[in-house]
């Protein structure tokens, strides 16, 4: 036990740790721990007051046990007691215990804060640092409230020791991150900025982190830091390798501080002051020059430290993107690194070059390294390096090298790691589209993609190729010919069948003149794949077949026979069966004209951002795709799509309606609630969706034609719908809808007639920012700071009756993890009740009139918590109806009346609740509720019961 022999430490602790290490099994370890816990507990409970040393030792043992992964439920008080010790070692263990086992127990927080306060005012730098470190480690809101105003004072006071300043600066930074509202720099701003001039490099190193964070939030207030940072940097960069003594690391002067200074400058645009700018450019040039000098040491630490500064300088150069000379020099430097023997450097050079490729000044310079990068893609051992090489090829791609790059990426795909295939496929698809001058090349590329990596070709990719083929009539014949050939392969990927089915269904006529691809040959080829395909593909093929009947009347008999066979017309899958039935009927009763209209060639798709690009962005997270790239694709995409105003949705809808009318089908799309929310650029993704309408499947004839792009689902599987809070809102309008450890969602709502307004309050309960915060209702601020709350207003209109509540999906990032939450918005039909008063006579007359089975719903249910008259009354009123007194002859019963207001109609509704107190056992009782309506409202009866049941809980 080498450490013990060195020990100034606690012998008992060392012995205990040895014992644990000697345990042969998990059981033995647990036994030993339990023995120790019992021992410590008895010591803490004992009559004899423990001395500081013992207390420290036992608290430290508890901490060790906790760090082994066991729960600790005592000892907090003893740890807090240690805080007020005068001995450093005791205090340190106390603070350590508190920092590691943070406990929001309010009693203790008060005591802890008190001890911290004493130490902060002790003027003992060691104690002050301990206290500051504790605040920095815990960083709770309570601590921010207690100390946020005190710490800036310590930070800038003239007599504060350097080490305390360092801790104070970072402590303040932590509080600012968790509770920015409580840290008010105001009067301190200038003095904090001037810490950049501090003599002590450690103080500058710590303070600059604080200044960088504050600058990002309040750039104007802190902008004087730019010139100070430049002059500090200049002094470091021009110093000889030993000038800075303690702060020289392997012959590199102050590498970390240099990086931080360069990072701070990236919060601002290039300095406006010519002298400052000149000095900065000089620094950057010096850094680039130093990279060319022979190394002062062979040690990797030397070159790493030097290159850390170099890469940060290059980041700044790229950030400014205004100095062509520096950009090209940076690119040349990185070019040297591309062939360096250090894998780290090759990796970083590829990564850094990726950003250089997007600058107009260095794009060409980057392109000169194409062969090296392609070689990296083929030969690097580390997959992450290959990934960077692929990223760089993607970034440097333009018209001049697209064919070469796409070919290389395709050939790499054949052997690429599974982990990066999907992304590679997206990238190839985007490049092929973006730089397609020759559309036959584009079609070849995508079909190759499907052939090589079919499993990784997402729906977006094959949707897109179809969109483009539809929009470009010069490529349709080629596309038909190529898919026809591709389908000849004995084993072809299902995605190929989908593309083939769609394209031949639309443009098969363009190759039908060749007897080798006559209509029947085409049909037989497609149908030979049918039985190996999944249901959605089969559905698509059925639609292709009906299109064939229109394109090639000579195939009608064959296809009708296929549709008529039992495996189609009696298929157990309802969608397939429906298509078969409808298409068969359509083909037999519709005249050629009608058929030609319904099955007309698809109209061009409207111009829009490539959904593949959208997917890639989603995959990479925001910021991964630069703005220029986006605009670029829009520009070039326009050329491809040959924009048209005729939306496919309208066409599809018309076709679907035509089919529906023809067949005399009674299915209609049921509209539930439609929310009026402010239109947003991406409304198709943000528009709230109610639960899918039951009749939706019946639009099958049209669904083939619908551009499915906008429905491209999120990549994350939706979370299960959480409706815990939902039922509680049936009878009330305000309250907390949802709450977990991270998030609280509050609701305030009001309704009048068929309109409603709902305020949603999203509260971040943590001290950490939520990023990428999105909801499916309306766009909101994407960042929700720790402790902050954001508000959202929804306008609601009830168009017609409905039974399913609209869903609200919320996504955000908390730390590393994506949080995905789906809730039912508490909008129930009863919210649109208008109470109606009526006499006993009127009530019962109407009650009797409503005798049709579909006008009545009745349910008997258990009251889970007794039946308090006042509670019941309050709930019935909460339902929105009028509670009618002296109407029912039985005074035990409750009767209510109201009119449900929808945009299309008003529906009167009567309700009677008959409690059965006799059956009451303990807190349970039976009651019967009957609801009658003038017209049937779907599930309305059960809706009320659910609500009453819920309310009874």
């Amino acid at each position, binding site marked *: 036990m080498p450490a013990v022999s060195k020990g100034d430490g606690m012998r008992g602790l060392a012995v205990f740790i040895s014992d644990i290490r000697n345990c042969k099994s998990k059981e033995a370890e647990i036994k030993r721990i339990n023995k120790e816990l019992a021992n410590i507990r008895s010591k803490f409970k004992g009559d004899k007051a423990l001395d500081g040393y013992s207390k420290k030792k036992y608290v430290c043992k508890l901490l060790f046990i906790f760090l082994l992964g066991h729960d600790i439920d005592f000892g907090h008080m003893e740890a807090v007691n240690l805080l007020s010790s005068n001995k450093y070692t005791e205090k340190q263990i106390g603070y350590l215990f508190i920092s590691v086992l943070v406990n929001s127990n309010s009693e203790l927080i008060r005591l802890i804060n008190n001890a911290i306060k004493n130490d902060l005012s002790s003027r003992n730098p060691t104690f002050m640092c301990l206290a500051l470190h504790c605040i920095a480690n815990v960083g709770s809101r309570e601590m921010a409230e207690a100390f946020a105003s005190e710490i800036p004072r310590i930070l800038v006071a003239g007599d504060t020791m350097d080490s305390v300043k360092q801790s104070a600066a970072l402590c303040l930074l932590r509080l600012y991150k968790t509770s920015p509202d409580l840290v008010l720099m105001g009067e301190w701003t200038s003095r904090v900025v001037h810490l950049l001039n501090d003599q002590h490099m450690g103080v500058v190193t710590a303070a600059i982190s604080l200044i960088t964070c504050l600058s990002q939030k309040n750039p104007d207030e802190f902008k004087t830091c730019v010139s100070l940072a430049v002059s500090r940097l200049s002094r470091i960069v021009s110093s000889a390798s030993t000038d800075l003594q303690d702060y020289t690391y392997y012959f590199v002067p*102050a590498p970390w501080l240099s990086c931080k200074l360069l990072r701070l400058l990236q919060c601002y645009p290039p300095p406006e002051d010519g002298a400052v700018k000149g000095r900065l450019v000089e620094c950057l040039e010096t850094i680039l020059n130093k990279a060319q000098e022979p190394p002062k040491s062979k040690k990797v630490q030397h070159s790493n430290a030097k290159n850390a500064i170099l890469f940060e300088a290059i980041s700044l150069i790229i950030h400014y993107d205004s100095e062509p000379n520096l950009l090209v020099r940076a690119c040349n430097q990185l070019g040297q690194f591309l062939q360096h023997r250090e894998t780290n450097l090759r990796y970083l050079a590829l990564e850094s070059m990726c950003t250089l490729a997007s600058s107009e000044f260095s794009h060409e310079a980057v392109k000169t390294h194409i062969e090296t990068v392609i070689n990296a893609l083929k030969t690097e051992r580390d997959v992450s390096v290959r990934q960077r090489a692929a990223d760089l090829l993607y970034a440097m791609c333009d018209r001049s090298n697209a064919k070469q790059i796409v070919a290389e990426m395709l050939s790499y795909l054949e052997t690429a790691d599974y982990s990066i295939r999907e992304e590679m496929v997206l990238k190839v698809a985007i490049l092929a589209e973006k730089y397609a001058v020759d559309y036959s090349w584009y079609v070849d590329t995508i079909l190759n993609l499907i052939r090589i990596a079919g499993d990784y070709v997402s729906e977006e990719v094959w949707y897109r190729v179809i969109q483009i083929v539809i929009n470009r009539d010069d490529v349709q014949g080629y596309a038909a010919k190529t898919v026809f050939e591709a389908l000849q392969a004995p084993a072809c990927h299902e995605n190929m069948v989908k593309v083939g089915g769609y394209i031949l269904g639309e443009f098969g006529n363009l190759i039908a003149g060749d007897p080798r691809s006559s209509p029947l040959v085409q049909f037989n080829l497609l149908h030979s794949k049918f039985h190996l395909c999944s249901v959605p593909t089969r559905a698509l093929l059925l639609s292709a077949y009906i299109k064939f009947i229109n394109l090639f009347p000579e195939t009608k008999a064959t296809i009708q026979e296929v549709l008529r066979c039992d495996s189609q017309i009696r298929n157990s899958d309802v969608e397939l069966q429906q298509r078969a039935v409808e298409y068969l009927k359509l083909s037999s009763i519709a005249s050629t004209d009608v058929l030609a209209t319904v099955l007309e060639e698809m109209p061009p798709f409207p111009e829009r951002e490539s959904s593949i690009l959208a997917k890639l962005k989603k995959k990479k997270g925001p910021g991964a795709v630069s703005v220029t790239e986006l605009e670029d694709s829009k520009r070039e995409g326009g050329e491809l799509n040959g924009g048209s105003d005729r939306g496919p949705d309208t066409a599809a809808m018309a076709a679907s309606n035509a089919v529906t009318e023809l067949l005399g089908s009674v299915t209609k799309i049921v509209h539930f609630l439609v929310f009026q929310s402010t239109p947003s650029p991406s409304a198709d993704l943000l528009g709230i969706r109610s639960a899918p309408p039951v009749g939706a499947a019946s639009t099958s004839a049209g669904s083939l034609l619908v551009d499915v792009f906008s429905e491209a689902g999120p990549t994350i599987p939706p979370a299960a719908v959480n409706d815990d809070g939902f039922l509680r809102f049936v009878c009330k309008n305000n309250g907390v809808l949802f709450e977990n450890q991270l998030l609280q969602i509050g609701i305030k709502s009001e309704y009048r007639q068929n309109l409603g307004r709902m305020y949603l309050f999203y509260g971040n309960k943590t001290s950490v920012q939520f990023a990428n915060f999105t909801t499916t209702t309306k766009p909101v601020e994407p960042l929700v700071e720790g402790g902050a709350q954001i508000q959202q207003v929804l306008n609601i209109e009830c168009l017609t009756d409905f039974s399913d509540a609209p869903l609200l999906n919320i996504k955000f990032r908390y730390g590393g993890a994506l949080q995905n939450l789906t809730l039912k918005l508490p909008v129930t039909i009863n919210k649109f009740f208008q109470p109606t008063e009526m006499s006993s006579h009127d009530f019962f007359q109407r009650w009797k009139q409503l005798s049709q089975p579909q006008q009545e719903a009745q349910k008997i249910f258990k009251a889970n918590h007794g039946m308090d008259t006042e509670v019941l009354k309050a709930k019935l009123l909460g339902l929105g109806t009028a509670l009618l007194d002296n109407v029912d002859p039985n005074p035990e019963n409750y009767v209510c009346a109201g009119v449900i207001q929808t945009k299309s109609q008003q529906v009167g509704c009567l309700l009677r609740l008959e409690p059965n107190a006799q059956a009451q056992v303990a807190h349970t009782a039976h009651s019967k509720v009957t609801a009658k309506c003038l017209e049937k409202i779907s599930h309305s009866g059960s809706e009320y019961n659910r609500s009453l049941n819920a309310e009874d809980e």
Partner: protein
Amino acid sequence: SLWIRFILIQNRAGKTRLAKWYMQFDDDEKQKLIEEVHAVVTVRDAKHTNFVEFRNFKIIYRRYAGLYFCICVDVTDNNLAYLEGIHNFVEVLNEYFHNVCELDLVFNFYKVYTVVDEMFLAGEIRETSQTKVLKQLLMLQSLE
């Protein structure tokens, strides 16, 4: 802004010798992170980079004998600065414990926290001078 999310020291078997967290995670999440980092880092060999993508962050790590020192930072942060930050930290430990070994970190775990706090605080680099850090540590050592 960019900062260190956590620092981990683990041995090859996956035993944690230090876990320092600079953002809030609950205990289960911490355990998961520890296991994931171990899985990601131990499969890599000397020819690989010292950087590895990790969830929405990246891990900068370096292996010393049987111990992996890992720092989790934002993807856009400076890889080499943290890589040398680790080495600087290891040199301080080595000096402080006179040829540090894994057991020193086990038996003196409470002192390791002090070393960390001297060099990294609130997820930021606090002090980089080995001389200054060691001087401070020796001063603290002399206190009772």
